[in-house]
């Protein structure tokens, strides 16, 4: 990675890291007032702090979904890479697309 790219990556990470941290911390701190309220035991039962409860069967489904999403992303990324390389090849050859399209070839 050359120097500029490294800077850009560092800056991006610097910019995104606080939000990530804030979000994760924020998600955690949602529980804190609940715990304290329960200890204080003021008036109404301080319920309602659901941190995305998930029964085991649903957890499995979610893991499967996530795996599928990433596999799809990798496959689509690879296919996209083929397309990008082709487009770059075509462009570098100077074959800029104009109004008409060349007819599709039948098999290779």
């Amino acid at each position: 990675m050359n120097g500029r790219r490294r800077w850009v990556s560092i800056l991006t990470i610097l910019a995104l890291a606080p939000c990530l941290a804030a979000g994760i911390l924020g998600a955690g701190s949602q529980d804190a007032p609940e715990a304290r309220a329960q200890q204080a035991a003021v008036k109404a039962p301080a319920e309602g702090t659901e941190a995305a409860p998930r029964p085991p069967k649903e957890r499995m489904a979610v893991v499967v979904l996530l795996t599928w999403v990433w596999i799809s992303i990798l496959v689509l990324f690879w296919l996209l890479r083929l397309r990008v390389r082709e487009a770059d090849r075509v462009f570098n050859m100077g074959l800029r697309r104009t109004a008409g399209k060349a007819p599709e070839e039948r098999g290779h």
Partner: protein
Amino acid sequence: MRTLRDWFDERLGFGAVIGFLEKKDVPRHKHTVFYYTGSSILFFLGIQIVTGVLLAFYYQPTLAGANPSVARIVTELPLGWLLRSVHSWSSTFMIAIVFIHLLGIAFTKAYRRPREATWITGVLLLAASLAFGFTGYLLPWDELSLAATKVGTNLPRSIPVVGAWLTGVMRAGEDVTGDTLSRFFIFHVSVLPIAILALLGAHLFLVQRHGMSVPLEEERKGGKGPVLPFWPNFAYREAGVWLILLGLLVTIAVVAAPGLGPQADLMSPAPEGIKPEWYFLFMFQTLKLFPARILGLNGEMVAVLLMMAGMGLVAVLPFIDNRPAERKGKIITGLAWAGLAYAVVMSIWGLL
């Protein structure tokens, strides 16, 4: 397929748009990566609209119903928790990329003539995005969001003359009540979407009209540097970026799904550890640091006015930085770096 395209073209006239897109070029230079930020924002906005509409199917914007309806979405409805988590995280991602986009434009000085109007629409889009985040934060109506909203809507009060009135407009009265919730809700789902779509239309039109800006060094080289056709080369690359962002978003949404605090009680004392969303942290921390009185003036008023002045400066930056290539431009760049450092430091401090 071609006849279908021709059918639409004959009636709607897409041909001109497609023809334009086919000819559009994206300059290649060391800062080209920033060109991806714009469409990434659009990607997340689309996700927000879809997940937002779905959440609104079951959300009830009333004092009694808000928190329980969110609880229902998160616990009972199939994948409701994931929908809400995606909506919440996508807002963070979107605003983060809006800031990166702004920084990229600011540091490459892409706002210089003739793109000042693009910058202004961009700043308004930033304001709309932040307003989205602010109004959305209240909607679950839990203790933390109520407290954060009380603090946030209290801020305008320190503006002289119109302050109290402004706070009253935001809160629908002097205090935060169910009316505040209704107001925030209608802004979040109606007023702001219309506004952001209108601004986006103007912003995108201006961007296409002026073409992609290049950094000053490239401009100095004169003529045309290396370019990439927008379609299909750059567009396919953008699609790749979108895929990665989608993966990151869904992963984080699954792994770090936000919970829901207990229902807000208008009468109970503020909970500990209130803080606003991360994008307001630097303002929040700045306010905390200001002393109560400065030179006999109300400290908070000075702080709020200073912040508004800062935002005003950012809004008219292209007109201030009218000689970007010369020393004045370099000074302004230095000040921008300082401003960024300040915001980052304050944000991190606000987190601790």
